[in-house]
């Protein structure tokens, strides 16, 4: 493509000195490539779908014929049935609402704090010196081990779970954001400065944009960790929520309902990760779908 467009440009260039209406190079040479990409996209969706179907069928066959005991392994059909019975009992709706609230509030607060702190330590050396031992310490430890303490301090309600989620989401986001701002290309900052940009304008026109893909990567990491935070927080002690339901199902040996809870988390993981990919495509189209 590069060579093509350059040659196209070349045709209008020499010899016609000074004429302002020289015809534009007119080969948007990446048109055919995008069609090929569309084909790839279609086939990759088809492959993923087929993989899921095969997996579920295998699960059903193994559960039904090889294991044959729903106490050990609930089949997909039994799991669906479990979801149905939880729904008609009215508990599923309530649990979804509680877990959803924990997830969304924890994820948003944790990510926002992570972005803010990451920005501060990237811009301020003293703050970085003060905070970085804590950040690397907390990032490296299995912070989920703190969940029982947080529940002890803040009770069985949703506030303790929100704190667990925040504590899981915040550190990767701090580290991604800081890395994004710190690695901002120096030449691009010089470009802005050469046109008279102030420090604030360099931040606004260059550093924010440069770090955006890093922040989005931090969000994607955060989704998985936030879901873990919800389940584990609820397993350690709760009075409502999907993790709480999983715990109850386990104590009643109700495998279909246990599997139902896990399946809902898996689906939530897929859905939120997908939504973030869409967000990435909208906010940073230049950084995504690289060839």
């Amino acid at each position, binding site marked *: *493509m*590069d*060579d093509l*467009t*350059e040659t196209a*440009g*070349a045709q*209008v*260039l*020499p010899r016609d*000195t*000074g004429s*302002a*209406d*020289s015809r*534009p*190079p*007119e080969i*948007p040479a*990446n048109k055919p490539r995008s069609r090929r990409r569309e084909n790839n996209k279609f086939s990759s969706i088809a492959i993923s779908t087929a993989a899921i179907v095969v997996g579920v069928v295998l699960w059903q066959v193994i559960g039904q014929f090889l294991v044959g005991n729903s106490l050990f392994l609930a089949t997909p059909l039994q799991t669906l049935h479990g979801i149905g019975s939880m729904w008609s009992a009215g508990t599923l709706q309530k649990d979804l609402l509680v877990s959803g609230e924990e997830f969304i509030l924890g994820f948003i607060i944790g990510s926002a704090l992570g972005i803010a702190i990451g920005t501060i330590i990237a811009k301020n050396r003293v703050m970085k010196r003060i905070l970085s031992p804590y950040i690397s310490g907390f990032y490296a430890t299995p912070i989920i081990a703190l969940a029982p303490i947080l529940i002890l301090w803040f009770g069985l309600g949703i506030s303790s779970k929100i704190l667990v989620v925040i504590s899981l989401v915040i550190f990767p986001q701090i580290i991604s954001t800081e890395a994004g701002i710190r690695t901002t290309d120096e*030449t*691009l900052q*010089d*470009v*802005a*400065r*050469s*046109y*008279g*940009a102030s420090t604030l*304008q360099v931040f606004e*026109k*260059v550093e924010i*944009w440069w770090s*955006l893909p890093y922040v989005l990567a931090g969000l994607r990491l955060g989704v998985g960790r936030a879901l873990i935070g919800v389940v584990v927080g609820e397993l350690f002690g709760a009075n409502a929520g999907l993790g709480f339901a999983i715990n109850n199902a386990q104590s009643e040996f109700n495998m279909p309902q246990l599997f139902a809870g896990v399946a809902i988390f898996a689906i939530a993981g897929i859905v939120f990760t997908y939504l973030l990919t869409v967000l990435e495509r909208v906010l*940073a*189209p*230049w*950084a995504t779908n*690289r060839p």
Partner: protein
Amino acid sequence: MRGVSVHGVYKSFGNGLVLQDVSFAAGEGEFVTIVGPSGCGKTTLLRIIDGLEQGDAGEVRIGERLVSGPARECAFVFQADSLMPWRTVYDNAKLGMELRNMDEKANKDRLSELLKLVGLAGFERYYPRQLSGGMRQRVNLARALAVDPDVLLMDEPFAALDAQTREIMQTELLRIWSGQRKTVVFITHQLDEAVYLADRVLVMGRKPGVIADDITVPFPRPRELSLKRTGEFGQLVERIWGTIEGVIRETGGI
């Protein structure tokens, strides 16, 4: 339109003296190229003229005005890939206007004209990664011209391009310059490029950087690319090469 005058500029980094008593002037609308071995402080000199860096001593004037910070009269064309990857061609070209608070609406037509002038009409909505190296440098040039500077400071803008594209861009630059007649200070390490483009070629020595020679290029304009194949052109390049070779030998190897 204003010229550039540099007087007695010194600059050192750490304990190394990079520029020593550098003085030269580029008249209004004059095209001056600076050549010299790598590490002679060419880029530092250009950054000082633009006000991106301060000299330790000496002064730089654009017209009558003393330069103390990023100069409004100048526009700096950086080496390859200094485009914002998140901005389209149009938005990249607009950056300087944005930062200098120029009225974007009033200048919209002019910006479109400019993109046409550098051969980018129809590519306004492309992102830099969709462009070839030569086209990216056209955007770079458009961004600089958009702020309508008196002085264009160009730091090896074509160094990363292949030989053919480079020659095309040289003729392009001359075509655009012949219409706008900016004062240009252009750094390169390609001697034929320096001679082909310039009214005057300055040769810099190194360790520390000084102006070792100042050569007026006699060829009339407009210049065809075929000029490069003539004997007189070859002799001039040869003479400049002689000076640089001397500089390199004196300061000990490449």
